[in-house]
């Protein structure tokens, strides 16, 4: 909704932020976590802050600075919409496990192959990470420290070894799957069903946002 709302309709944005903050409060998310995760937005903020200084057209005076009006509006738009998007993503990712997200995508009929790849990535990220960490420790235990370009060769070798190990693991996993009757299709989840209430809860946020947007468009 926020993307389609012009940034000049300030009341809508106030309402959107109110909505997302109430969602954060209701989800009992620690403010610290939300703040820490929001840091990812900083590059975009920097970019948006530069926008009012470059451009053409009308200028306005803001605390002694002469800024381009269009740039100012666009920059504010980026910051407001970006922050809303990130806060929404944070609420989603902190209230929903990655597994549940994948199940959701499956229900939304995202191609099965993509779901399978994402599912395996989810499962094996930790395994590969641990393996990488063990290799790092093994290197360090024999006195290796990557300090400069001379060491890139060692790191590249490690990366290659990791790739081969993962590839071989892939083969073993496939073997284990085939041994249990895998023929190319992953099981549809049978153990978890989504209740109507969960659906209603999930849809509440976008629906309220849509109502706000519509109402304020009609009034304003």
């Amino acid at each position, binding site marked *: 909704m926020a993307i389609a709302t012009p940034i000049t309709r300030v009341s809508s944005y106030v309402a959107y932020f109110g909505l997302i903050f109430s969602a954060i409060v209701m989800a009992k998310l620690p403010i610290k976590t939300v703040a820490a995760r929001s840091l990812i937005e900083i590059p975009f903020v920097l970019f948006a802050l530069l926008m009012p200084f470059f451009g053409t057209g009308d200028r306005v005076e803001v605390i002694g600075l002469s800024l381009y009006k269009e740039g100012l509006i666009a920059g504010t738009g980026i910051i407001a919409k970006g922050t809303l998007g990130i806060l929404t993503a944070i609420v989603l990712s902190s209230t929903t496990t990655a597994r549940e997200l994948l199940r959701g995508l499956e229900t939304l009929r995202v191609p099965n192959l993509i779901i399978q790849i994402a599912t395996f990535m989810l499962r094996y990220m930790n395994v590969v990470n641990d393996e990488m960490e063990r290799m790092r420790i093994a290197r360090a235990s024999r006195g290796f420290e990557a300090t400069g370009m001379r060491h890139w060769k060692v790191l590249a070798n490690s990366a290659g070894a990791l790739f081969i190990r993962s590839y071989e693991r892939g083969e073993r996993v496939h073997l284990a799957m085939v041994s249990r009757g895998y023929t190319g299709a992953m099981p549809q989840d*049978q153990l978890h069903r989504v209740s109507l209430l969960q659906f209603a809860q999930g849809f509440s946020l976008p629906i309220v946002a849509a109502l706000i947007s519509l109402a304020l468009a009609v009034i304003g």
Partner: protein
Amino acid sequence: MTKSLEISELAFAYPDGHQALFGVNLSLNKGERVALLGPNGAGKTTLVMHLNGILKTMQGSVKVAGQIVDAEDKEAISEIRHKVGIVFQDPDDQLFMPTVGEDVAFGPYNAGVRGEALEGAVREALELVGMYDFVDRPPHHLSFGQRRRVAVATVLAMKPEILVMDEPSSNLDPTSRRELADIVRSLDITLLMVTHDLPFALELCERSVILSGGIIVADGDTREILSDSKLLSAHRLELPRGFHL
């Protein structure tokens, strides 16, 4: 009585020309627990891969519960794969689904079990290994011993005719090892256990066979085989120092 497993004159060479099996004869009665012992490179894994048609039989034959294992026959092979449950050595290879429950459901699902029957099968299998409380947990949150037990459950959920375990006691701490032994002992199933852990074999299997150089060189009572130190050392096997039968 039909035998759970009947292997006769099985020979196999890898595409690069390396011959791993030279005529293996082995048969397991229903309900029997047999340890398959042998040094590294004896052909144990190659043999296991024949039991459910992952490797194609080149010469000789493998029969599971009277049914011949033929990797070419797609329909028969899927039936065979539900009769032969293989627990692989690394539980991280075996547990590939995001949660324990989904992983245990994988085998029965592929066999066409759905709905409540599927939930029942998952529950039953996990209870057999004492891991039902972990049904919704991701595998990487479990200890190694717990993952090994779940790996056993994934196979038990398929209600196999024969359970094949590849080095089941490897990397387990003594308590996990004992817990696994208790679980295996409680199962009423034909078992082929591939292992180097001779005390573990003695604890669980009344009968042992030694595979060495691609043939079965000994087949008999576990205690007798393990007390023949000449036989053991001829095939790079030995009891742990200080271990007495």
